[in-house]
């Protein structure tokens, strides 16, 4: 519970943070809400010697409507998503999912950019962004690029982000048609044992904690698009997944949960 020694710099801007990332290389880590990074440092699973604090960059904290989509600053906290009128009207799923992350203190610290960059397959918001077909805007030394959420996650705690890149914004399509999120866990503040996000009546179905990244339940999506019943589509939810095994669940049980929760989510989204 005692982290190794590190230095700490407050970034003055996204540009400054990226410049520092360039200078320090793999010694450095961006610090946003700190609610994933600091626990890892306390267990000495992460031992960065330089922390670059981007959590105070207020100009990266916003939620606004832009033509056809909603733009969210990377440093927007889960609690801000939870209480956003813009999301309530135009992307209620993201608002709902944010309210299910951890406990109030986690939600008042953790950020949307941080949780996406962390790329934990057990996290809620990455799967929601994936089901919604969102886009991640990353800034590096040579400017910004947009990355489709379906291209973003590459493995356990891994994404396509380069070492000197920072997430600055997340875009999700506006829309409140047929959505639902099922989170199954044992204690209110815990990560999902399995979670299922359904967007747009079922054209986007994504799974939490069913592989090394948040994943789309492609077989179920396709079956549904092809006219299958909800029950038949849900039965395909775990197809081609390789769920992790831990104290809460073995693979077979996770696959079962994925099917049950997908069915429930689809029924609720279309009910």
């Amino acid at each position, binding site marked *: *519970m*005692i982290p*190794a*020694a590190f230095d700490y710099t407050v970034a003055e801007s996204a540009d400054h943070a990226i410049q520092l990332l360039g200078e320090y290389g793999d010694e450095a880590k961006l610090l946003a809400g700190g609610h994933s990074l600091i*626990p890892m440092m306390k*267990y*000495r699973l992460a031992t960065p010697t330089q922390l670059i604090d981007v959590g105070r960059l207020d100009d990266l904290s916003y939620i606004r409507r832009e033509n056809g989509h909603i733009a969210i600053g990377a440093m927007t906290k889960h609690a801000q998503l939870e209480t956003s009128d813009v999301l309530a009207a135009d992307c209620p799923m993201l608002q709902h999912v944010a309210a299910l992350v951890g*406990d109030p203190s986690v939600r008042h610290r953790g950020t949307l950019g941080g949780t996406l960059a962390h790329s934990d397959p057990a996290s809620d918001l990455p799967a929601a962004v994936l089901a919604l077909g969102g886009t991640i805007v990353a800034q590096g030394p040579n400017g910004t690029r947009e990355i489709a959420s379906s291209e973003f996650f590459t493995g356990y705690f891994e994404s396509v982000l380069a070492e000197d890149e920072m997430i600055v914004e997340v875009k999700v399509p506006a829309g409140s048609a047929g959505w639902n999120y099922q989170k*199954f866990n*044992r*204690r*209110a*503040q*815990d990560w999902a*044992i399995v979670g299922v996000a359904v967007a747009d009546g079922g054209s986007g179905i994504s799974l939490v904690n069913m592989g090394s990244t948040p994943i789309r339940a492609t077989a179920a999506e396709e079956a549904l698009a092809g006219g299958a019943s909800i029950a038949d589509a849900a039965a395909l939810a775990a197809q081609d997944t390789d769920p992790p095994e*831990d*104290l*809460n*669940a*073995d693979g077979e*049980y996770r696959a*079962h*949960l994925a099917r*049950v*929760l997908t069915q*429930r989510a689809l029924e609720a989204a279309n009910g």
Partner: protein
Amino acid sequence: MTATIGSRMLRKEDPKLLTGEGKYIDDIHAPGELWMGMVRSTMGHATITSIDTSEAMEMPGVHAVYTGEQLQEMGLWIAPLPCAWPVTEDMVNPPHFPVAVGEAKHVGEIVAVVLADSRYGAADAAEKVIVDYDSLPAVGSIEAAVAGDVMAHSDLESNKAFHWPLIPDPEGTEKAFAEAAHTVEARFVQQRLIPAPMEPRGCMAIPSPAGGDITFYSATQVPHILKVMIAATTGIAESKIRVIAPAVGGGFGGKLNVDADAILSVTLANHLGVPVRWTESRTEAAGSSHQGRGQIQYISAAADADGKITSVKVHLDADMGAYMMLITPGVPLLGSFLYTGVYDIPNLSFTCDGYFTNMTPTDAYRGAGRPEASYAIERIMDMMAHEIGITPEEIRARNYIAGGEAFENYDAASTLVFDSGHYRPAHDRALEMAKVADLRAEQARRRDAGEAKQLGIGMCTYVEICGLAPSRALGGLNYGAGGWEHATVRMLPTGKVEVVSGSTPHGQGHETAWSQIIADKMGVDPNDVEVLHSDTAKSPLGLDTYGSRSLAVGGVAIAMAADKVIEKAKLIAAHQFEAAPEDVEFEAGSFSVAGTPSKSVHIQELGFAAFAAHDLPDGMEPNLQEQVSFDPPNFAFPFGTHVAVVEIDTGTGGVELIDYVAVDDCGTQVNPLIVEGQVHGGIVQGAAQALFEVANYDEDANITNPSFMDYLVPSAAEMPSIQLDSTVTPSTSNPLGVKGVGEAGTIGSAAAVINAICDGLSPYGVTDMEMPATPQRVWQAINNSNGGAA
């Protein structure tokens, strides 16, 4: 109105604790203090082939690094860490030194100690100590210990530490089984639990600059026991050791030990002449603090054709962990007397085998042996009801001691005598509060409709042994101490009352309860009462807090000492009134002569008279101060009925506790608010065992979930709003009629919750559910169902 016995007085200790003014061990610092950083075994069982401390020594702020071998050579102690309860003459008790020498026997055992001038520096340096291990086969479960293919201690020929029987009437037991109309048997697993108090453990030893005295601060439940044991282990004279327990943030038994860190900080501080301290980190605690439970129970019950239970037979295989700690071997035996529960069962046969494993040592954890016993008998009662085809309510009603009527001095098959009981009223009240009849109708409706969420209703009628303990009874069990408690009451010159308590709070609210007892007895404002405790310099005599003993032993001692002060004050009052003591009456704090109420003197005014001693009766010693060491003539046996209601999601296997009713009887209540707080916490702790918590070890004896991310302590969000009521059946074991309530909730709730789950799943042919009832286990049980709907 002044608060008295029975008032819901707000706790005196809370303003300080709630505003952050409480000083816990980690808030206390001494100039020049050094921090210990423990290098702990990462192996369940291994030979330590070499320890390289050179890099650690070079780290900034590091003063010293010691290996077990070096410490042993320094001769800092005269005995291994103590076990005060050698349960049998031939119990195997391998020496357990503060730091391992040669062989590490559990993950978390200390193999070297760093001393540095900061906590962070100590942690950094501890990481640089390089330990080479040759791994040895490890015993990672009770089953493996019993099988005996692998030895937990390489130099032992068996993992078995002792065999302990309690079979008062062997023939009676066998006959009952031979003649039984019904028998049931079961195997239950009491998984290991981590005590997890809010404040982790910690300590600091401060040597005095001259004279060789040591002040030892410790987050402990047992400063008095610690003082004696530190003296016995280190050879430092008791008179030179002062133990202080500052504000202590919970313990649940986890702070009832003499741990390696205590002996290391005392001896290193003494050796180096500087303060030495340590604070446990949360993950470290899985290996540095003892764990609870850890038993496999084999139980069978016999009943006649009317469903009257005639005998219970129990065998335990109990997991000691790698070593015997303070009362490790005694814990499972504390339950032995309770396997007949609240029932009039004439025969009991109990045996326990204690086994060594390569896991963290076990020891007392809230209820210590009694929740395990209550669980087994209450589960087997439901199984017997099922076997006979009657309801859980009915089988209990048919078997209550005295038919559920009030009784005193019941001779139990275990040979103990139950002080008092009256079981039926709590049973009836709990079923009524839970609206069990309505719940059964709703349960039937959901079953018929084949709904995904099914209801389960479970009950538990428990009894426990509190007020530990009559010293002779402890002697009979070969326990290494008595069970009395000491109290002093002083009326000070200013009229304030000073109470010195031998029992030591770590969250229970002793200051409040003791003030109420004094207020009630002496007719003073409870705010005029100051309670001194938790410091062996202020309270030299005491046996501390565990086993729901504080009120039933320590509180009674306070009341008795108050009575003696009143008696003496009465003589002074009579002297002042020039009346015979027999004619002096005492009422609401005032003495007066019978028939002339106009002339009166308040007891608080007599404090000064006794202090000044200008005009005391001839031959009377000055001062109003009395002491009592109360050794209870018997234990106290609180009881109650708990009802748990669960909703089971048959799709996911998720179980939600949706209602919980507890009707407890702890005898006379001094402060019902404190009673309710104890019951709430206890219920959640037992429900946590049923649903959430397990210290999980793999077969190499590695703990796989040492952090709060994986060791699931439930929060308020997982618990229903608990409904409480109580009945009052005074104890006959003490003059206050009090019984103890610190562990009651825990003792009733695990069985109630599992009974509820088994009830809910009965259409699926499920008859048992291992704890914790994880969603996966519940889903598998449904999946394996032979009957069921889904």
